[in-house]
């Protein structure tokens, strides 16, 4: 009898186990793979657009997806990565908060077998992410720098408003711009300050710079939000007609301002292209592809008054 009870228990366990494995296998086959979209911040409409386009492409490819907002906080980003790995997400489309601070999250995910595709912002570790799809910010700002020199006729005083100092894009943009402008000794940079890619901060920074340097001729801003903030400060001080403002991103209000002659130019990024490429790479990864380019640059186009009709917010006119 004793043997019989043990025999029954063993038999029950085997059947239950097989049944459980069967259920799990069925679930794995039937349920779509899941993609986590972890974005640095959803306070900036540019990143909202990036995340939404990634989500739409993932859905179109037949995958479930969820957007996580890191609120520009690497600790929060780490929580999102931990949750994504623990919840069984199969890939992460990632817009990092910090080029250095985000490396560990990428490495942890990849070590756990979850591929990571960076969008727009990079991490400073070659080979850590499965692939990085990035705007060619440097080259875009070379084009802006050239136009800046042409429109200021190689002379004048100017201000540079930088983005977040921990972000590679900030420096790629600044270096691209200076790789051209610094050739011309007649162009003098009287102030260079960070406004964290934030419109209100840029307005404050510009207001205080104008008090010390009321005679500037141009302003180069590391993104369009800051360009709009700087423009507001110039309007308030009555200098908007004289000072030429340049941005970067291709945001809706700046495209409109270029059309109206308020802002001189911007570098049009293509977040939709980056988001769609990242989602497509994830799809290819699921299907077995492994040889992805370490970095995939996406061309940035110079938008100015004579070609602005070709563009809409965050990309080309459809």
């Amino acid at each position, binding site marked *: 009898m004793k043997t019989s009870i043990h025999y029954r228990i063993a038999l029950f366990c085997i059947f239950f186990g097989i049944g459980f494995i069967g259920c799990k296998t069925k679930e794995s086959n039937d349920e779509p793979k899941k993609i986590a979209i972890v974005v640095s911040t959803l306070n900036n409409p540019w990143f909202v657009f990036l995340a939404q386009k990634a989500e739409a492409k993932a859905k179109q490819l037949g995958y479930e997806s969820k957007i996580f907002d890191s609120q520009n906080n690497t600790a929060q980003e780490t929580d999102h990565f931990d949750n994504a790995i623990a919840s069984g997400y199969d890939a992460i489309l990632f817009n990092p908060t910090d080029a250095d601070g985000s490396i560990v999250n990428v490495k942890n995910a990849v070590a756990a077998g979850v591929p990571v595709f960076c969008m727009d912002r*990079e991490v400073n570790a*070659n080979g850590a992410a499965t692939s990085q799809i990035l705007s*060619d910010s*440097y*080259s875009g700002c*070379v*084009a802006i*720098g*050239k136009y800046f*020199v*042409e429109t200021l006729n190689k002379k004048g005083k100017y201000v540079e408003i930088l983005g977040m100092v921990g972000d590679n894009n900030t420096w*790629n943009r600044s*270096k*691209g711009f200076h*790789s*051209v402008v610094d050739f011309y000794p007649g162009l003098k940079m009287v102030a260079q300050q960070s406004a964290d890619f934030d419109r209100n901060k840029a307005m404050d920074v510009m207001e205080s710079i104008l008090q010390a340097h009321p005679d500037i001729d141009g302003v180069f801003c590391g993104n369009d939000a800051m360009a709009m903030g700087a423009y507001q400060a110039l309007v308030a001080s009555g200098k908007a007609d004289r000072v030429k403002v340049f941005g970067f991103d291709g945001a809706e209000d700046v495209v409109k301002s270029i059309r109206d002659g308020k802002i001189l130019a911007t570098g049009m990024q*293509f977040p939709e*292209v980056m988001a769609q*490429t990242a989602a497509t790479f994830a799809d290819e990864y699921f299907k077995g592809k492994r040889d992805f*380019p*370490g*970095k*995939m*640059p*996406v*061309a*940035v*186009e110079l938008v100015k008054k004579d*070609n602005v009709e*070709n563009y809409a917010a965050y990309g*080309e006119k459809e």
Partner: protein
Amino acid sequence: MPKPIRYLLYVAVIALLAYNSVYFKKLDEVKAGSAAFDAAAYAKDFWEKKLMPGLPKAVELGVLTTQLETEKDKAFEQHSHALGIGNIRYFLVKGQGEVTDVSENEVSVALARGGGKAGNVRIATEYVFGNAVRDASGAIDINAFTNSMDFNNVSAEINKLIREKVIPPFKSKVKKGDRVAFQGAIELNRGHLQLNSIEIIPVSLQIKKP
């Protein structure tokens, strides 16, 4: 086993492990390794070994513009290069024509043998910036670079070579009415093609004797 031999064995094993676990290297060597990439030397090598030998493959600009008007996609597919994705593509081109104007920043040329809408082109002599020459030949692989700033610096150094070696001897002599031959790189936007304002970043320039 006698104790002295056993201890001797322990010491030998520990010494062997320690020797294979730690190594010393001069800090100078380590620093030199991290800053090893010499963009100027790379650009010079690229110029001599890849760009110059590849120049005979440059497409005649008049032929290219005619093809762009009739079969744009095929022209981009056959003749353009780019290292990333997007509308901006680069072409290696050649041509000849008559100088119609010499200004501070460029030399305007009316192409010989017509040339469709690209009848007039501009040779940049001042604003030599960007990636046109680096990327037009298709001879550079972005994934061969571990650092994107190294990659950007290659463009800057190639453009410096053009500013120092190609442009000065040409700019000092060229005048309106001269016949010139050029080889160089152009940038075109596949999505918004503009053939009436082609700017050539020159790689080779000659003023033809009358």
